[in-house]
């Protein structure tokens, strides 16, 4: 049972790393707290649901569609909203309230458009039969969801560390001030990072029906709390630190579900508060700014 929980935990860890990844990228580059992150994920899940039920398209096709679509929506959205925020005195706090408002809008629109009933995609569309790994039998949908999440994390790594645009993105994360002084076009880089953040959330959403269970318009808040737990446990402002946070979270969640299932829902919240109270700098790295 322990081996199963640990193995499942690693798979879930990869998935939750993906859930936190976009949020952390946006925070790292723009110092903006995207409270609508979980709702973007929810929209990705609905996109996958409708592409499957209306057009019979599998999540493997929905994934690239969602990535490209959300990326293209993210660019204008950035220019519409974020530059105005940057002018404010306390941009971080204001961004939180602003995206809270955006979250409410998305959630309401989703409820109006899709209704509030629970939606799901049958797991068999990802392949039939159980999956055997290291002597354990796992759900095939889990393994695929985890593998795609790992691939997305790897893709972001390659972008950040092996392209010029990725280098400039890391430069902005390292020091906004020096990035400006170096003549980096902050808005171009930020808009791109913002759009990538949305695309990653959308991708996580496509596989949410298999990893998180059924989809509802109201799922955003709990996804957000999980995502914040992941990035705060990991390393705030450093997207790749999210992997460690995701793994800790995933393994913790599966262990809780295995040994204390009644209390498993508490994990993200307790982890979040616990880390913030005990070690406000995050377990692994960058500081959470203290008041």
């Amino acid at each position, binding site marked *: 049972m322990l081996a199963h929980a640990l193995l499942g935990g690693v798979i879930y860890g990869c998935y939750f790393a993906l859930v936190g990844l976009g949020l952390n990228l946006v925070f790292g580059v723009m110092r903006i707290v995207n409270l609508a992150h979980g709702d973007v994920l929810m929209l990705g899940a609905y996109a996958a649901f409708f592409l499957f039920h209306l057009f019979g398209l599998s999540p493997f096709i929905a994934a690239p569609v969602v990535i490209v679509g959300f990326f293209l929506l993210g660019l204008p959205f950035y220019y519409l909203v974020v530059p105005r925020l940057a002018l404010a005195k306390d941009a971080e706090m204001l961004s939180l309230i602003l995206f809270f408002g955006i979250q409410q809008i998305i959630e309401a629109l989703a409820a109006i458009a899709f209704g509030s009933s629970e939606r799901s995609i049958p797991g068999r569309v990802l392949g039939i039969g159980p999956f055997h790994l290291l002597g354990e039998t796992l759900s095939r949908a889990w393994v695929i969801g985890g593998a795609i999440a790992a691939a997305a994390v790897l893709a972001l790594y390659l972008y950040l560390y092996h392209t010029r645009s990725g*280098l400039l993105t890391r430069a902005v994360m*390292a*020091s906004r*001030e*020096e*990035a400006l*002084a*170096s*003549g980096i076009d*902050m808005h171009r880089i930020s808009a791109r990072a913002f759009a990538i953040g949305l695309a990653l959330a959308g991708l996580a959403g496509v596989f949410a029906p298999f990893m998180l269970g059924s989809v509802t318009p109201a799922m955003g808040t709990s996804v957000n709390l999980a995502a914040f737990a992941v990035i705060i446990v990991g390393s705030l402002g450093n997207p790749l630190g999210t992997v460690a946070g995701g793994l800790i979270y995933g393994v913790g969640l599966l262990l809780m579900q295995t040994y204390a299932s009644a209390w498993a829902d508490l994990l993200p919240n307790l982890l979040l508060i616990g880390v913030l109270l005990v070690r406000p700098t995050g377990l692994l790295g960058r500081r959470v700014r203290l008041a």
Partner: protein
Amino acid sequence: MPADPPLLAARGIESGYGKVQVLWGAELAVGARESVVLLGPNGAGKTTALKVLLGLMPAWHGTISFAGSDITLWPSDRRVRAGMAYMSEIGVFTALSIAENLTIGGQFAQPAALRRRLDILYDAFPDLAARRSAAAGSLSGGQRKMLGIAKALAGSPRLLVMDEPSAGLSPLFVGQVITILRQFHQDGLALLIAEQNVKFLDLAEHVITLEGGRTGFSGSVAALMADDALHRAYFGL
């Protein structure tokens, strides 16, 4: 006196932070291939002046031109693309490697041109060439300064604007910085260096002093020495 219009000219610059006005009509000009040292004690507005020239802070009043264009309202990335480079007092990204810092400096260059430029820079800065993939944060203060210069030069600028390259440096390193800057200046690079370290006057063809956010003295080093402008700018007594 050169008849050509200056490469960079700033007229009547006023600026500041929030409600605190720091510059009260500063005047500055740098000719093509000229080196200008901006002298003044701390608090005189040197850093602010440079930031306004680079577009990192808005000019409340006044105009700035560079290479014949009015750049007063340009964003800073456009100014850098047009041939201005800025080395801030920090100068480098400590979290990134030496090679990455240089690539950021040359972000607007074509890959082939950047490679050629980096070869030249690594020749000029052998310390950096030996440790290309080391994090800039692992360098000593003097080496960081050298990296900052190399990074600023990676984009092959026409004008290098520097904020206190001597800050935090031992006299030995100050000498090295001056030597390397002289070398690039002789190859045609125009310099505008804000300093309180008078040693940099060795490099200057023209000196401007800032006193309380206004241009004080403007002239040759010899004239500066003849006048007691220097002592007045620093001690105000």
